[in-house]
């Protein structure tokens, strides 16, 4: 395909190099000048005998006209054209084809330049990851705190024990001076290290800013929880049965005069729902399963009843762009929906009683796997905490679309998660639950539970989105989860050593290493 698109440009370029007119070449090849004109402008595809005649007339081998090297280059250029970097330059496929046809060396140079740019960016990402979780920084910070601890201890001892012997006093004074020196050099090293990274961090993406907002709040929003608790009795018809979709539809109609319609997915741009404020209509995709439909409808309640609270949170200085604020609003409406469907205290009691058997919890609340996992990460009410979980959602290409960690586990921000994590192997057995004990670079042991979820398309031929959801916690809590039953925490052989990403990982002789460790 690519070769065909370039053929006309190549014929034209070679003809001009030979100093031939269109009419002359057309005569040599035995076609009309008008037809050659169409060929040169890629409006006619040619092959077979005509291709051979043209090649002969231009005195080049036919392969030079159909060239595979150029086809590869064009594929590279098309990939470049799709990069958000060029979003504002309106670079289209025709421009790229023209460039390659007219100036192939320039096209090669462009590809080389782009590769260098990508490589530099990847390096920056890896380095900024390392700043966040760098073992050197962690060690340096620990060293500084230890030095301060000993200096403070010695100072207090000298003050509180004035009757101590001269020799002992001298010894502590000397130790204190030595510790002060160590503190100075530890602090200097830390500053040098940080200075070497100045400017390395890229401008943050909206998704990163929203992540940071969630981290600031520990993924628990008391105001939204309270609103959900207040509203639930007005929405549900029977507290013993929980919140049904029918309850929400009826509430939205009565309280807000909002009508809910089911619509074909193509009319909703493949989104789960669209809200039309003018007609006060909420359109929910016919492709959305019942669990997702209920969730979308509950988000509607949030838009109408939790608007002020959400706006207050979205005004956080953490969010620096409209895109980030919009993304945060969506995320917070989702939070509210979860809080409405899974009442905090009773949900916590239920999950504790069921030892976090997510499938049973799904049945009790008629909810999806992802909804239950997500709600588990929000059980962080001070004084009434659930297990501190981490949560990651990745697609089959390894792109991370959701991440949160209250467990202390570090989760890469940009993808490229260590291939040993169960989040990847879960794709091998779709729908099955995979439990894994891992030892992370911070030396803590974690329990991982991973399984895939499939979001169906509207029809047989529509592509389906498959995600792997990883839920987990520090192994300290393992006994409180059914998924740890049968795993031997005391046996080192049953614990997998994992890294974060290859570039941050020291593990030697790893048979899954894809990138070298980045030295700093």
């Amino acid at each position: 395909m690519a070769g065909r698109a370039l053929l006309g440009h190549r014929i034209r370029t070679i003809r001009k190099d030979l100093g031939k007119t269109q009419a002359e070449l057309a005569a040599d090849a035995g076609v009309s000048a008008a037809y050659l004109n169409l060929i040169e402008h890629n409006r006619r595809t040619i092959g077979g005998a005509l291709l051979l005649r043209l090649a002969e007339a231009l005195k080049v081998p036919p392969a030079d006209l159909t060239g595979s090297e150029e086809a590869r280059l064009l594929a590279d250029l098309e990939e470049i054209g799709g990069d958000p970097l060029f979003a504002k330059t309106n670079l289209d496929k025709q421009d790229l084809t023209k460039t390659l046809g007219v100036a192939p060396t320039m096209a090669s140079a462009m590809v080389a330049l782009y590769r260098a740019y990508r490589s530099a960016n990847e390096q920056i990402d890896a380095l900024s990851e390392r700043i966040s979780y760098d073992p050197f920084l962690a060690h340096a910070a620990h060293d500084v705190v230890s030095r301060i601890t000993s200096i403070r201890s010695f100072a207090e001892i000298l003050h509180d024990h004035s009757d101590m012997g001269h020799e002992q006093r001298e010894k502590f004074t000397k130790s204190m001076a030595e510790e002060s020196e160590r503190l100075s050099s530890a602090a200097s090293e830390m500053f040098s290290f940080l200075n070497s990274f100045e400017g390395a961090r890229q401008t943050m993406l909206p998704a990163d800013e929203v992540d940071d907002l969630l981290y600031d709040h520990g993924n628990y929003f008391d105001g939204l929880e309270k609103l959900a608790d207040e509203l639930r009795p007005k929405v549900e018809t029977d507290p013993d049965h929980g919140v049904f979709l029918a309850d929400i539809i009826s509430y939205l109609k009565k309280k807000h005069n909002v009508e809910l319609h089911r619509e074909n997915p193509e009319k909703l741009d493949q989104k789960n729902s669209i809200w039309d404020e003018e007609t006060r209509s909420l359109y929910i995709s016919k492709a959305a399963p019942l669990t997702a439909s209920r969730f979308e409808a509950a988000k509607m309640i949030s838009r109408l009843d939790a608007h002020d609270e959400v706006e207050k949170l979205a005004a956080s200085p953490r969010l620096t762009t409209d895109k980030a604020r919009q993304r945060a609003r969506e995320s917070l409406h989702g939070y509210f929906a979860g809080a409405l469907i899974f009442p905090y205290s009773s949900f916590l009691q239920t999950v504790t009683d069921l030892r976090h058997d997510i499938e049973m919890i799904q049945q009790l609340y008629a909810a999806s796997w992802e909804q239950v996992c997500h709600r588990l990460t929000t059980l962080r009410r001070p004084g009434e905490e659930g297990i501190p979980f981490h949560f990651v959602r990745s697609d089959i290409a390894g792109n991370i679309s959701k991440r949160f960690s209250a467990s202390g586990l570090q989760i890469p921000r940009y993808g490229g998660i260590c291939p040993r994590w169960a989040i990847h192997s879960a794709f091998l057995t779709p729908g099955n639950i995979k439990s894994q004990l891992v030892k992370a670079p911070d030396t803590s042991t974690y329990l991982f539970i991973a399984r895939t979820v499939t979001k169906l398309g509207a029809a047989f031929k529509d592509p389906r989105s498959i995600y792997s959801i990883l839920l987990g916690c520090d192994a300290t809590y393992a006994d409180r989860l059914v998924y740890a039953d049968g795993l031997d925490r005391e046996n080192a052989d049953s614990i997998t050593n994992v890294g974060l990403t290859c570039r941050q990982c020291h593990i030697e002789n790893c048979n899954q290493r894809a990138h070298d460790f980045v030295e700093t």
Partner: protein
Amino acid sequence: MTHSVLIVEDDDSIVEALNFLMETAGFDVRIAREGPRAIELVKEAVPDVMILDVMLPGCDGFEVARNIRSHQLTKHIPILMLTAKNRPIDQEKAHEIGVTAFMTKPFSTREVVEKVKGMLNS
């Protein structure tokens, strides 16, 4: 009656300070600088109280505490855990394991002594 304390800490200066404080407070002091060594010392002779750092060579303070809480003879030992990392998750983990008290470095030496004495009395 003299009480015994096991100090588990890998930083020499902090060991020096804690050792002085505990001896001055009348304790019989033993010291371990690595996690596995601490477990060995506890098995040799059960101390009345432990001061336990989190970041240790061999295995961390959480592992040590978990091991101690899992044995009938040692599960009752009051443990004061010390950490340089001021992370809520560490406090939650310590609580889950059943650590008696938790202090963040840099700590007040007076509070450490009071806390250790308090744990013995309760």
